[in-house]
């Protein structure tokens, strides 16, 4: 078509798309000559829009006629038979490629999808996959696509054969492998399913197995993967050349060390004469890079270069250290905090803008942000400021999660029966970082109301201030516990002071009055005697508490590292009805023990004593420590372990003496035939939990199942402590930070118990809504 002046443009074949749209993408306009390559670029432009399957230019006199055939649009797209790849991932992938309902359909992207899916399944070892797209034409230039996927079975690994290994047996080498031949746990661990990534990972494990044991010039000679004609069995064979064992002859550190050589040498985990180990070399260079990143060299490079001396079988190792420029942090930008205020995050930051880059401070900040409990995930990434080689911006991406719960509802726990409770707890009220909770709950044996507010940053440096108002009325009689009624009102102010980066002290001063009424004949005699000795029914006390806390946990809801140490001393100060001191200490720690298992050990001890003018009395029983229950020794009802007393009195050779329970907890001729537990002034608890990485729970990120062993008991005084009266129980417990609040269900079986416990045993315990 030779060039001509275009007087008018007409477009044929448009149904869905408006002429205006075509004009915007068209590069030709009326009145100017049309040359051959201009026509060409116009056609290409129209194809670019991916709206047309065919574009041809034609000439009718001086009008340019553009004939287009519109691509059909996709009316319906469904996928069948995909199990390995989840539906919504697949749809997202297809959408990003342009294959979604309402989009224009083009054959090319459908082929690309088919190829992509097939290679995805080959990567997963499913070599018999069939991906068949069916495209059916509909009216009004529309098309329905149905992609049928027949995944087939995975190629099972029948044999892994390592040839040429003299110094180690196949079994030793293959311990770290992810792929294995079918064994008992294969149905769950799927380790006998062949996949290319797993294999390349295993070959690296094989290589490092040797290189970490001195075989410096170990070579992976060849590795073959063969499959059976029916593609259902895979065989993996690798042949290795072990080579000789090398020892390190000399180590040099070259380049600008920025630190005295003595300090840097301490980070080299290899010494002259040691066996060569690649893991140690890599660990040394990582450690050096980490140390340099702590003093501003965020982009430091440390390259180890081993020189092998084949006949003396020694390795001369040189570390080239290139620290690069000292890097400063220009800006810290938070992303994702649409509800939490910027200041709440920024005040946790130990790395300041304008300061030199300090990796330790940044890692510490990540832990502090995770300890807040406001965020599901916290990721801190450094990005270079373009145009400047020594400045970096920190981008902190956080995913917020509701750090509290708005709760109206009915709770149930066996010992408290139906709990009607309403509570608003918000650890991050309106994003200001303050903790506020107001709750009221009523069950058939206790009613309580509680209002508390705490602002952790009253001053910039982190002094916190808070108030707590509480009212509770409980009568344990209806449960199996000691039959007396308490009616307690209290108000306290507390102040938190950080004393180091990890530790904090909390001082609290409070006023409380507690009315106790005991019922003769129903309440254990010991208690009524105690009240008569004191002489007053209501115990007014003002008490001061000092609590020291050291928190190194790496997460608020589901920690896997670190732990918490806590010690608090509460004293009912002189002028209170009964002057006593109450000490409570707790230490716990989390260890990941590999494979997704996390071990958690926890120890608690509580000790109370009267002092001063009241030291002649025992420790007041309403302040007693209790043992047993879902957050204590599981398998026993709440607060039922520890000393138990009968009601009523008998006369023994002339003296009226309270009835004492016999061996299996039975009280002769007293109103209740069972002895009532009243807790004690000394309490011990030990608990070991192993969190299990159950596959089906992996998506709920705050639900964990643990196998636990609890031991503990309460004693009247510390002298009565006796190891073989410690109760032990074991079982399984589910802890889930559900949207409505913390939920705990545990199934426990007492292992070591006494005869008198049999009425207090409780297999299944659960509670929700109360902070565990």
């Amino acid at each position, binding site marked *: 078509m030779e060039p001509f002046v275009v007087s008018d443009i007409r477009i044929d074949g448009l*149904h*869905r*798309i*408006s002429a*205006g*749209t075509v*004009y*915007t993408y068209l590069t030709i306009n009326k009145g100017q000559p049309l040359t051959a390559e201009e026509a060409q670029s116009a056609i290409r432009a129209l194809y670019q829009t991916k709206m047309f399957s065919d574009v041809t230019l034609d000439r009718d006199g001086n009008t340019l006629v553009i004939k287009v055939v519109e691509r059909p*649009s996709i*009316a*319906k797209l469904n996928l069948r038979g995909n199990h390995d790849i989840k539906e919504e991932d697949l749809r997202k992938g297809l959408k990003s490629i342009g294959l979604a*309902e*309402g989009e224009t359909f083009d054959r090319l992207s459908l082929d690309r999808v088919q190829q992509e899916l097939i290679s995805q399944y080959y990567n997963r070892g499913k070599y018999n996959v069939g991906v068949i797209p069916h495209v059916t034409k509909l009216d*009004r*230039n*529309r098309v329905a696509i149905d992609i049928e996927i027949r995944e087939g079975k995975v190629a099972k690994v029948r044999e892994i054969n390592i040839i040429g290994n003299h110094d180690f047996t196949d079994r030793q080498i293959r311990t770290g492998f992810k792929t294995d031949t079918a064994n008992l746990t294969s149905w769950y661990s799927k380790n006998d399913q062949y996949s290319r990534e797993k294999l390349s990972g295993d070959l690296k494990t094989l290589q490092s197995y040797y290189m970490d044991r001195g075989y410096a010039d170990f070579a992976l000679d060849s590795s073959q993967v063969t499959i059976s004609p029916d593609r259902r069995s895979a065989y993996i064979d690798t042949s290795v050349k072990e080579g000789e064992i090398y020892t390190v002859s000399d180590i040099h550190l070259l380049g600008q060390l920025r630190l005295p050589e003595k300090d840097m040498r301490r980070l080299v985990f290899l010494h002259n004469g040691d066996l060569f180990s690649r893991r140690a070399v890599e660990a040394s260079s990582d450690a050096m890079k980490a140390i340099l990143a702590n003093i501003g060299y965020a982009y430091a490079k440390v390259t180890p270069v081993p020189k092998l001396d084949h006949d003396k079988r020694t390795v001369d190792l040189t570390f080239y250290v290139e620290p690069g420029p000292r890097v400063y942090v*220009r*800006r810290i930008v*938070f*992303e*994702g*905090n*649409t*509800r*939490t*205020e*910027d*200041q709440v995050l*920024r*005040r946790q930051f130990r790395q*300041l*803008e*304008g*300061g030199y880059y300090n990796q330790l401070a940044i890692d510490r900040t990540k832990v502090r942000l995770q300890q807040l409990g406001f965020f599901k995930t916290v990721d801190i990434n450094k990005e270079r400021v373009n145009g400047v080689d020594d400045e970096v911006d920190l981008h902190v991406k956080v995913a917020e999660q509701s750090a509290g719960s708005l709760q109206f509802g009915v709770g149930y726990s066996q010992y408290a029966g139906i709990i009607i409770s309403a509570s608003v707890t918000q650890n991050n*009220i*309106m*994003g*200001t*970082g*303050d903790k*506020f909770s107001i709750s009221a709950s009523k069950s058939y044996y206790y009613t309580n109301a509680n209002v508390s*507010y705490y*602002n952790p*940053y*009253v*001053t*910039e440096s982190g002094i916190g*201030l808070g*108030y707590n108002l509480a009212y509770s009325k409980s009568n344990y009689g209806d449960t199996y516990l000691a039959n007396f009624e308490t009616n307690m009102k209290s108000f306290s102010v507390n102040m938190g002071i950080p004393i180091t980066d990890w530790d904090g002290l909390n001082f609290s001063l409070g006023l409380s009055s507690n009315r106790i009424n005991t019922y003769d004949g129903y309440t254990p005699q010991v208690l009524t005697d105690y009240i008569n000795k004191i002489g007053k029914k209501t115990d007014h006390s003002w008490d001061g508490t000092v609590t020291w806390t050291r928190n190194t946990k790496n997460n608020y809801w589901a920690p896997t590292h670190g732990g918490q140490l806590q010690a608090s001393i509460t004293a009912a100060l002189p002028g209170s009805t009964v002057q006593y001191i109450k000490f409570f200490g707790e230490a716990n720690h989390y260890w990941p023990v590999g494979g997704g298992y996390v071990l958690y050990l926890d120890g608690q001890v509580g000790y109370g004593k009267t002092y001063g003018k009241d030291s002649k009395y025992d420790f007041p029983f309403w302040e007693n420590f209790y043992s047993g229950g879902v957050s204590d020794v599981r398998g026993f009802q709440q607060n039922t372990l520890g000393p138990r007393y009968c009601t009523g009195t008998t006369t023994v050779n002339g003296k009226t003496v309270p009835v004492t329970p016999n061996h299996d907890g039975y009280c002769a001729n007293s109103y209740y035939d069972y002895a009532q537990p009243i807790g004690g002034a000394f309490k011990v608890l030990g608990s070991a939990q192993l969190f299990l990485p159950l596959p089906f729970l992996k998506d709920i990120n705050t639900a964990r199942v643990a196998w636990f062993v609890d031991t503990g008991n309460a004693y009247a005084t510390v002298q009565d402590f006796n190891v073989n009266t410690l109760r032990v129980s074991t079982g399984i417990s589910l802890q889930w930070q559900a949207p409505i609040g913390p939920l705990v269900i545990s199934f426990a079986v007492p292992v070591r118990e006494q005869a008198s416990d049999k009425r207090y045993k409780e297999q299944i315990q659960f509670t929700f809504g109360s902070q565990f």
Partner: protein
Amino acid sequence: CSMFHKRENLDALPVDKLYANAHTSLEMADYAAAERVYQRLIARFPSGPYAMQAQLDLAYAQYKDNQPDDAYSSVNRYIKNYPTSKHVDYAYYLRGLINFDRTTGILERWLGRAKSQIRRDQGYNLQAFDDFAELSRRFPDSAYAADARQRMIYLRNIMAQFEVYVAAFYLHNKAYIASADRAQYVVEHYQQSPSVADALAILAHSYAKIGQPALSKQIRSVLALNYPKHPYLKDPGWPHDTSVWLRAIPFSGHN
């Protein structure tokens, strides 16, 4: 109520009845139902004027139904498919609106705490600013361009106030170089916003605190020239940190 009369099968209705059905739901502010019907309409009748209008109404329904992400992708698809429709300027405007008031939480909006928007992630504000900028660039004389420019100024002031808020934070934490950098960022990027005065004040205050009286005096003179009545000129300790006692009062909103 609206649930039941939707019973007739959406797949049988002709296109105009379907559109009318969706439109009434939109009128009655039953956005979820409207959204469902519009989506069926677009899927069944992708070509023709109804589909175009349905796509725009779908974006609006999703925006009102408080699903900003879906609304954003729907409005983007409208702009891609119908770049020359006569409502496309409204589509750009709606795209800006979606991200406009996204950072204020529901509680804050109900409590009317204006300050909350300047203290949170500015990502969405930046996105809204760029979308409005594109609208005023492409359609300078559209009916929505004027309102878009107003909103751009508002957004720019919000972002400037955010920077000043962070600068004040660093000032109170005695990190003077950080506060100076943030203040300088405002002076360089947000000259026309009213909070440039506060920025200059913080910059002068920071320079004074890091032993640079000459620089501080220079900034003070610039501030005095442009904003003679600024509190910093009279009281060098400005901006003062809220007193501890005020913060100790719960819900005082002063921290």
